[in-house]
């Protein structure tokens, strides 16, 4: 059953008690990494509120932040916390209630490769950096072999595949590399891949496809997409940790909150060297305002964000997108701000 | 009602090329005027200025006056569309409308102008016009077939039927019989004889005999050479032109070529 969306503005009402009371259309947009999780959230929320339609434009984090700042989107997803210009614009847009920002979507980034017969490799951060910056060019390189005594490494040349578009995944991956291997990876982390002359492809599905089509390829991508490729267990301290939602959740839970932000903003200062955690994670933020111009939107955002941050919502995303659920600490910290969303 | 046409000092241009120079003539009502002359001398060009068809060619222009019963056809408040409705034309190459049936081709002048006509009037007009063009018997069983399926001669007669269906005041014909067999030619010539009772008729022909047979007055055009403008050499009673023309070149042209 498909009720027609009532339009951009909804008619929220809080008087009735039983079942759904919300209706209308709620529009958001931003990071494409959140798309799969967002589908689960939207489906869950819309099922509970059949008269509501939630839309999410996967236009990318930058587009999401811009759209959030100029009022295009009532809520947004972004692979990085708001900074400077975007923050100022968002604050102006949101008015007195301020901004609500929390890591609603946390997902491990897998380092995946195409070597027939090899499912898993142990790689130290420095080795990963050297592979991606082109210093190590063959799979039977000593540096690789040293940590993988049991694997029969072929002589195949390494083909690095990176994202060709400006991407939050790239930025996160580079942040990891420059944090743990600053000598091997001297580049300033940004959404664009810094090294020229390597293979690349558009979007997560693009790099996965390219890696699958070229033997000896290696790439980095959202972990939920890498089936069919071998994956890397990443060196943390002396251990090698394979990717998993739990290990990724752990790194978020153990990293400190950024200080000096307003109350509703819960940004993470990610630590990449905590033993037993999987350090390459994409932390994608959910953005909303504390106050909205009209009541209906406020009610819709409040309802949707409540669901998104809830245990139930986080589990839905974990099932659909392989993400790491929000820790109880963080949820407890942001819930009051979400519940305070109101018109004004 | 037939109409007299007075042409004064007419120069006709294609862009900068002066195709016909300095023509002055009078075309009498209720008579047939024939234009003869060698190929390229501007007969067609001059004819097309009489119903302002010349000006549909980009860059074409005229100087001088063409008066119909004293009204300058090129006067500022004269509507060229009205001129063409009253001065009908049949072309050298048959050009029936390919999208229309034979019937609709005959009715084109009426239908294209969005005029309403009752079914019976239409049938009458179609039959009358086609009979006039001596085509009725050949096409009466396939009036709904496209006109382009006819042979060349049949197509030309269809075009004549189309032109006379509009009942113009003046009828211009540019070598209307050049694609016709003798029987059709004769029928058209007879028709011209009938039409001149009511209309002013101008016919361009390359056929001396035809000019001699059908026309009351004949105008002879000539051209001094390629790139030079065509000129009206002489115009007179047809019998005079063919028996004792005033100009040597006319005599050269009409004498002894045929028969």
């Amino acid at each position, binding site marked *: 059953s498909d009720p027609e969306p009532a339009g951009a503005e909804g008619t929220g009402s809080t008087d009735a008690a039983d079942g759904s009371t919300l209706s209308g259309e709620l529009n958001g947009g931003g990071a494409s990494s959140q798309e799969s999780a967002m589908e689960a959230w939207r489906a869950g929320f819309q099922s509970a509120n059949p008269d509501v339609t939630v839309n999410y434009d996967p236009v990318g984090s930058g587009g999401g932040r811009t759209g959030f700042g100029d009022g295009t989107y009532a809520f947004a997803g972004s692979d990085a916390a708001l900074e400077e210009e975007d923050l100022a614009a968002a604050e102006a847009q949101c008015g007195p209630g301020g901004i609500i920002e929390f890591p609603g979507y946390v997902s491990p980034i897998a380092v995946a490769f195409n070597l027939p017969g090899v499912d898993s490799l142990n790689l130290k951060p420095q080795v990963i950096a050297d592979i991606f910056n082109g210093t190590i060019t063959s799979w039977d390189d000593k540096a690789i072999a040293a940590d993988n005594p049991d694997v029969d490494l072929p002589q195949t040349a390494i083909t690095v595949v990176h994202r060709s578009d400006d991407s939050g995944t790239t930025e996160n991956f580079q942040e990891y590399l420059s944090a743990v291997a600053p000598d091997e990876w001297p580049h300033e982390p940004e959404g664009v891949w810094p090294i020229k002359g390597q293979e690349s492809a558009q979007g997560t599905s693009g790099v996965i496809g390219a890696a699958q089509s070229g033997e000896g390829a290696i790439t980095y991508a959202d972990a939920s997409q890498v089936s069919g490729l071998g994956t890397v267990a990443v060196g943390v301290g002396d251990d090698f940790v394979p990717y998993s939602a739990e290990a990724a959740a752990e790194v978020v839970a153990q990293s400190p909150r950024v200080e000096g932000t307003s109350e509703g903003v819960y940004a993470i200062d990610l630590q990449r060297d905590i033993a037993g955690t999987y350090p390459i994670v994409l932390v994608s933020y959910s953005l909303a305002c504390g106050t909205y111009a009209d009541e209906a939107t406020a009610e819709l955002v409040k309802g949707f964000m409540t669901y998104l941050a809830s245990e139930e919502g986080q589990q839905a995303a974990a099932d659909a997108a392989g993400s790491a659920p929000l820790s109880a600490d963080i949820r407890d910290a942001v819930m009051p701000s979400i519940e305070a969303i109101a018109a004004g | 009602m037939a109409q007299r046409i007075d042409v004064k000092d007419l120069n006709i241009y294609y862009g900068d090329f002066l195709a016909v120079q300095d023509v002055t003539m009078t075309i009498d009502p209720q008579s047939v005027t024939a234009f003869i002359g060698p190929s390229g001398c501007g007969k067609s060009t001059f004819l097309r200025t009489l119903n302002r068809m010349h000006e549909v060619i980009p860059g074409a222009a005229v100087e001088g006056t063409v008066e119909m019963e004293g009204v300058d056809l090129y006067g500022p408040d004269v509507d060229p569309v009205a001129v063409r409705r009253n001065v009908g034309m049949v072309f050298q190459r048959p050009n029936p409308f390919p999208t229309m049936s034979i019937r609709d081709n005959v009715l084109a002048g009426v239908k294209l102008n969005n005029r309403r006509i009752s079914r019976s009037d239409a049938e009458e007009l179609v039959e009358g016009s086609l009979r006039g063009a001596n085509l009725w018997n050949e096409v009466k069983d396939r009036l709904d077939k496209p006109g382009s399926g006819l042979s060349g001669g049949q197509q030309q007669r269809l075009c004549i039927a189309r032109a006379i269906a509009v009942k113009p005041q003046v009828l211009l014909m540019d070598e209307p019989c050049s694609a016709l067999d003798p029987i059709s030619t004769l029928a058209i010539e007879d028709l011209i004889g009938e039409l001149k009772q009511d209309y002013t008729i101008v016919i361009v022909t390359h056929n001396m005999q035809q000019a001699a047979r059908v026309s009351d007055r004949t105008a002879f055009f000539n051209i001094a050479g390629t790139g030079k403008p065509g000129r009206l*050499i002489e115009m007179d009673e047809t019998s005079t032109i063919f028996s004792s023309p005033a100009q040597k070149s006319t005599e050269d042209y009409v004498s002894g070529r045929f028969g």
Partner: protein
Amino acid sequence: MTTTASGPPVQAPARRRTRRRTTDRGFNRAFRWIAVGSGVLMLAVLAAVALFLLVQAWPALTASEDDLAASVPRYPADTSLLAYVGPLVFGTLLAAALALALATPVAMGIALFISHYAPPKLAQVLGYLVDLLAAVPSVIYGLWGIFVLGPAVLPVWEWLGQVLGWFPLFAGTVSPTSRVLATVSVVLAVMILPIITAVSREVFLQTPKLHEEAALALGATRWEVVRTAVLPFGRSGVISAAMLGLGRALGETMAVLMILSPGFLYSFKILTSAQHQTIAAYIAADFPEASGLAVNTLVATGLVLFVITLAVNMGARAIVARRKEFSGAN
């Protein structure tokens, strides 16, 4: 007895030349103005698009190199905006030119096949098929390029690289993923093929029977009929068909975006990855994440694409104009 004999050419006194021109009235005039109005509206739309491009590009055009380098991803330090756009222009032109070179002869062949070679009944069906393929969305071409064409042509590219490696186009390492400009060009060629074919075919079909028969009666073979009557008649139509195709190839976004492994070099190595990028794909790839000056810079590259189309069209116009007096019309 009004005999008007011009006699010997008398030098007429200089008369005031009053040339008569067409005048419209009534609904004729209204219709004329409606038609003129939509012509002007066309220009207005284009002007609006151009204005939008220019206004949005202006900050980038006037910004300093350092500002650009600081705020635009992929903007190399110490480079003028022109030098930055240069490789993109090069890639765009190379891809479109290769596609056109591949597609035009084949498209003309197909058009002739349908109009003059295939049995008339079959020709209708084939024309239908080609029309249909003009409508395949670029996303589908992108998918097809990635999943089907890429793997299929890889051996061909490897072979070309081995055998013709000395030729600049085929030099360099052949990419194992075949996400290279050569593959993109083939996809673009396939994409523009139906467009060029459909328009050329319509034009070829309109060749006057009279002219074809004239050639036949001189003892021309079928090909000679095509050469003497059909091709000259269709020339301007084919040029405009090719331009429609070129326009699409220059501006094609999704297929390039999905297939090409981009790079920003002046390189002829169409079998090597990370050498080229086209403007349209570049804009699409980076636009979502761009903000501030980066958006302006992307729009500026769009402006460059605009200018390229303009230049290409001027060239093609010149070709058509030179042959105008010999054109088949009227």
